[in-house]
């Protein structure tokens, strides 16, 4: 009989049985034919079952057969303990699912190379220098004219590619009425060629599409955008759209999978760099520089050449700087050029989220370990309850391997079920998390394909988990000594000690997760509840664009019109909203001398802005319509402290960047300007230029509304702005609260996920503790009965039951706190306003752990106290 037919028989036991049955029937028929009595002939077979079994065992591969039996038996065992099994499947499923989801995110953001030819030959240029705050920082931006000089300098060894930052802009395909938003990226014409990309439709850019400023109004769509917006219509090539007052023509579609060079932002429309106004400005840093090495050339040589050119270009530029302190000038000139591998693309999101994602991966791993320990304990408890069964199996001849297989089969079923739950969870949760990374109106989009990496990871974690939590109890069970087990258990404490050890480890991990989650939540809380210095309630920020040539007078007319609307309390105008991440800065000199090397922030505001923002006026007055720029300024307290030594600056003069003279007319309270995390910066609020040259192309109108939901007015405002003056158009409406919130997206996400994992870890640890206590009461019920019988009070019994477990919880908590202190240093950069070793948080984590332990102990303790000595002692 072939191996295959044995296999076939093993999996489908019935045909073999049927064949044997038929042979026996034919035997009996033969016997009857020869005159034997039918009943006697049948009886001669003895127990037909026995023959069947003996024959069957010979004819099938015994191992496969026993495996089938073990799986069936395991399934029945699991169904017998529905609640425990469901808890195990769910906890493992959540843990493996979270692991897979975390891997999915990390892979998409950090590991996966861009779909370009030979990503290992792709590098990016960075500059290491000092930011305006005086901190060492890796700069990514370059100016286009410098880029051109550098490209020419290294053209024999490498090709430089300029790529702008992805940004979300408005465009219209037909009429001005239908405004759409899309992500655009300006790229060098030769980028597609250099990346080895081929068009999905039409053509891609070439070097000749990117030669003269403002001369190539062509666009390439991304495959994803083409699919979403146009349903892959090939006729889209040749269509035109309007953007930034230019008319662009679509020439082609990029290949599938290429979503731009910024993981986290999917580019919809690629445009040639020459179409961006910044190409001619040597002080606009708006591009990132990719370096495509030619085969076999030295990266170091290219770097050295770039450094030389870069320093020369910077020195040339510095000659034009006025009013720069010497120290700053030196820092500006001493920047180091770095050329680093960038086969995966570069993005702000990657920089911002790589550490948080790594941290989450660690947390998720810990939760997975807790879940494994839990299931191991549950299985171990069950195995203990089945010690007699195991002993019986051993005494009738089951081998060690057979028993291991029996228990492993059970855990394999658990793992398979759990991985189904986990796969569903991972499938749902990764996009859910990505959608929450950016503000709600512009969510981040990451390509999250299900590929072999993901399947491999899921499979590996499932197999790993099966062995982690299944093998140990299996080995223990197989070591059963039948004689002692049937007599009532060999060393009842050995197994319990083992479970206690697991508990200690579990508690330590749980404490660690709790502590880190506590750090992140506290950090988010402090950051989000940071006083801003102004009132965000019912404040609406209306970003507005004007056709070229609109002076302040017309802007005032629009503001005046909005002021008349019902539900609008105040209207003011500013260059941009506070805390939107935008900033304009400059050096401040008093009496002709630069003070310090700290930069001050500036913001153009209209009269009445202070009142609209509810920023308190401390001294002096608000801006008046007749104030002009340069001329008057309002400064905050930090400004007074930094540049006037804390004296009242009202009536005094200062100069911005050496030349522009301003008189301080008012002193106001501190308000956060650009970033929630920054310390309060010296800030000056200055009027708009009101002369004929003072044209304003875009600004933000700030509306203090009366109603409860300011966003409901967005539609009306869009219409009313256009009605006030047709040259004006609303480009975006946000509430100030949303703007503030988008400052803390990362912290919120981290806090949310960490709390989620902390809750899961707590739940798992609670279930684990309950299981162990319950088992221990079950196992020691005879001892407890005897103690009761000899007169021990219930309090003594309670002590006996929980003492060891609580000692383990204490051990675990101490261990976990130690780990927490170590881990805190690692997460330090993610924290805000929280000291990494904050003792209250450690205590809180340990306290929570004890509370959970106490809650888990209630039921088993109650059971122990209710033990009736007579019943227990009689039962054995």
């Amino acid at each position, binding site marked *: 009989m072939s191996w295959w037919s044995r296999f076939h028989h093993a999996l489908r036991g019935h045909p073999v049985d049927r064949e044997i049955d*038929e*042979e*026996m029937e034919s035997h009996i028929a033969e016997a009857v034919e020869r005159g034997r009595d039918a009943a006697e002939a049948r009886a*001669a077979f003895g127990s037909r079952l026995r023959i069947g079994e003996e024959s069957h065992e010979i004819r099938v591969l015994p191992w496969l057969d026993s495996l089938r039996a073990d799986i069936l038996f395991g399934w029945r065992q699991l169904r017998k303990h529905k609640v425990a099994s469901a808890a195990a499947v769910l906890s493992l499923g959540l843990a493996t699912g979270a692991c897979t989801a975390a891997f999915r995110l990390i892979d998409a953001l950090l590991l996966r190379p861009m779909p370009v030819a030979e990503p290992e030959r792709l590098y990016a240029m960075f500059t290491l220098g000092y930011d305006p705050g005086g901190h060492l920082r890796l700069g990514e931006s370059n100016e286009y004219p410098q880029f051109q000089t550098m490209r020419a300098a290294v053209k024999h060894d490498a090709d430089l590619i300029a790529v702008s930052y992805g940004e979300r802009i408005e465009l219209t395909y037909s009429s001005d009425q239908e405004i759409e938003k899309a992500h655009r990226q300006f790229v060098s014409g030769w980028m597609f060629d250099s990346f080895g990309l081929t068009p999905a439709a039409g053509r891609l850019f070439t070097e000749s599409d990117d030669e003269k400023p403002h001369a190539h109004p062509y666009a390439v769509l991304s495959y994803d955008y083409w699919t979403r917006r146009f349903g892959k219509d090939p006729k889209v090539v040749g269509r035109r759209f309007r953007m930034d007052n230019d008319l662009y023509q679509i020439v082609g579609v990029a290949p599938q999978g290429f979503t731009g060079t910024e993981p986290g932002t999917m580019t919809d429309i690629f445009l040639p760099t020459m179409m961006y106004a910044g190409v001619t400005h040597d002080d606009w840093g708006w591009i990132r520089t990719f370096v495509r090495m030619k085969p076999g050339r030295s990266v170091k040589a290219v770097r050295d050449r770039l450094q030389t050119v870069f320093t020369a270009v910077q020195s040339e530029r510095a000659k034009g700087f006025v009013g720069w302190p010497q120290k700053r000038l030196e820092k500006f000139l001493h920047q180091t050029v770095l050329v680093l591998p960038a086969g995966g693309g570069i993005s702000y999101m990657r920089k911002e989220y790589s550490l948080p994602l790594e941290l989450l991966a660690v947390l998720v791993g810990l939760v997975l370990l807790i879940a494994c320990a839990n299931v191991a304990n549950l299985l171990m408890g069950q195995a203990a309850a089945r010690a007699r069964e195991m002993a019986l199996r051993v005494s009738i001849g089951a081998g060690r391997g057979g028993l291991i297989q029996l228990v492993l089969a059970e855990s394999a079923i658990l793992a398979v079920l759990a991985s189904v739950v986990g796969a569903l969870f991972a499938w749902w949760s990764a996009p859910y998390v990505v959608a929450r990374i950016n503000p709600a109106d512009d969510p981040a989009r990451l390509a999250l394909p299900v590929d072999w990496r993901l399947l491999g990871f899921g499979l590996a974690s499932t197999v790993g988990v099966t062995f982690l939590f299944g093998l140990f109890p299996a080995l223990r069970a197989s070591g059963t000594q039948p004689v002692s087990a049937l007599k009532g258990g060999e060393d009842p404490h050995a197994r319990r000690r083992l479970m206690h050890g697991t508990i200690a480890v579990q508690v330590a991990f749980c404490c660690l997760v709790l502590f880190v989650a506590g750090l992140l939540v506290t950090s988010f809380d402090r950051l989000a509840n940071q006083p801003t210095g102004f009132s965000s309630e019912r404040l609406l920020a209306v970003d507005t664009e004007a056709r070229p040539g609109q002076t302040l007078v017309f802007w005032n007319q629009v503001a005046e019109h909005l002021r008349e609307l019902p539900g609008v309390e105040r209207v003011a105008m500013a260059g941009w909203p506070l805390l939107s991440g935008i900033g304009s800065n400059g050096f401040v000199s008093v009496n002709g001398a630069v003070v310090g090397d700290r930069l001050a922030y500036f913001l153009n505001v209209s009269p009445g802005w202070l009142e609209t923002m509810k920023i308190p006026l401390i001294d002096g007055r608000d801006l008046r319509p007749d104030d002009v720029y340069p001329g008057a300024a309002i400064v905050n307290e930090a400004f007074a402290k930094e540049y006037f030594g804390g004296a009242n600056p009202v009536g005094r003069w200062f100069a911005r960047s050496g030349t522009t003279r301003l008189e301080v007319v008012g002193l106001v309270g501190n308000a956060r300007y650009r970033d929630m995390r920054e310390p309060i910066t010296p800030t000056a609020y200055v009027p708009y230029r009101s002369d004929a040259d003072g044209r304003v192309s875009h600004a933000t109108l700030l509306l203090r509304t009366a109603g409860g939901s300011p966003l409901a007015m967005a539609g009306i405002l869009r219409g009313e702005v256009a009605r006030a003056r047709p040259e004006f158009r609303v480009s975006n409406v946000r509430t100030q609260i949303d703007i503030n919130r988008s400052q803390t997206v990362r912290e919120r996400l981290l806090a949310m996920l960490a709390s989620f994992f902390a809750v899961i870890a707590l739940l798992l640890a609670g279930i684990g503790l309950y299981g162990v206590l319950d088992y221990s009461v079950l196992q020691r019920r005879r001892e407890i009965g005897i103690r009761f019988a000899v007169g021990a009070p219930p309090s003594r019994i309670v002590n006996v039951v929980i003492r060891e477990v609580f000692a383990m919880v204490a051990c675990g908590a101490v261990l976990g706190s130690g780990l927490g202190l170590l881990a805190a240093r690692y997460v330090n950069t993610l924290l805000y306003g929280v000291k990494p070793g904050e003792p209250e948080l450690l205590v809180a984590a340990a306290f929570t752990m004890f509370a959970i332990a106490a809650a888990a102990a209630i039921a088993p303790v109650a059971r122990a106290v209710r033990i009736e000595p007579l019943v227990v002692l009689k039962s054995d």
Partner: protein
Amino acid sequence: MPKPDSLQGSLDLLVLKILSRRPGLHGYAIMTAIQDISRDVLRADEGSIYPALHRMEEAEWIRAKWVTKENKKRARVYELTRAGENQLATEESRWNAVTSAVSRVLRMA
């Protein structure tokens, strides 16, 4: 586990020998053949003949096939394989060695 009244390990030999002379017998016929030829001295019951047949089939000493008898009933018949012929020779010579050794002991003791 062998029963006290079993054929003391000679069942395989008997079955192989019978099948070598009369290939194509089914289980019942083999059983009755043992009984008849040994003049009722040796009996192989149903409980041992079938496991033995299946074991030898597994060892590929014999092979089985289903045939339809004249009365339209199906029966499973067995015949020797090449390996079975070799096995028969081996078993036979061992049996002869053992029996002659036993009779020598009976004579000489």
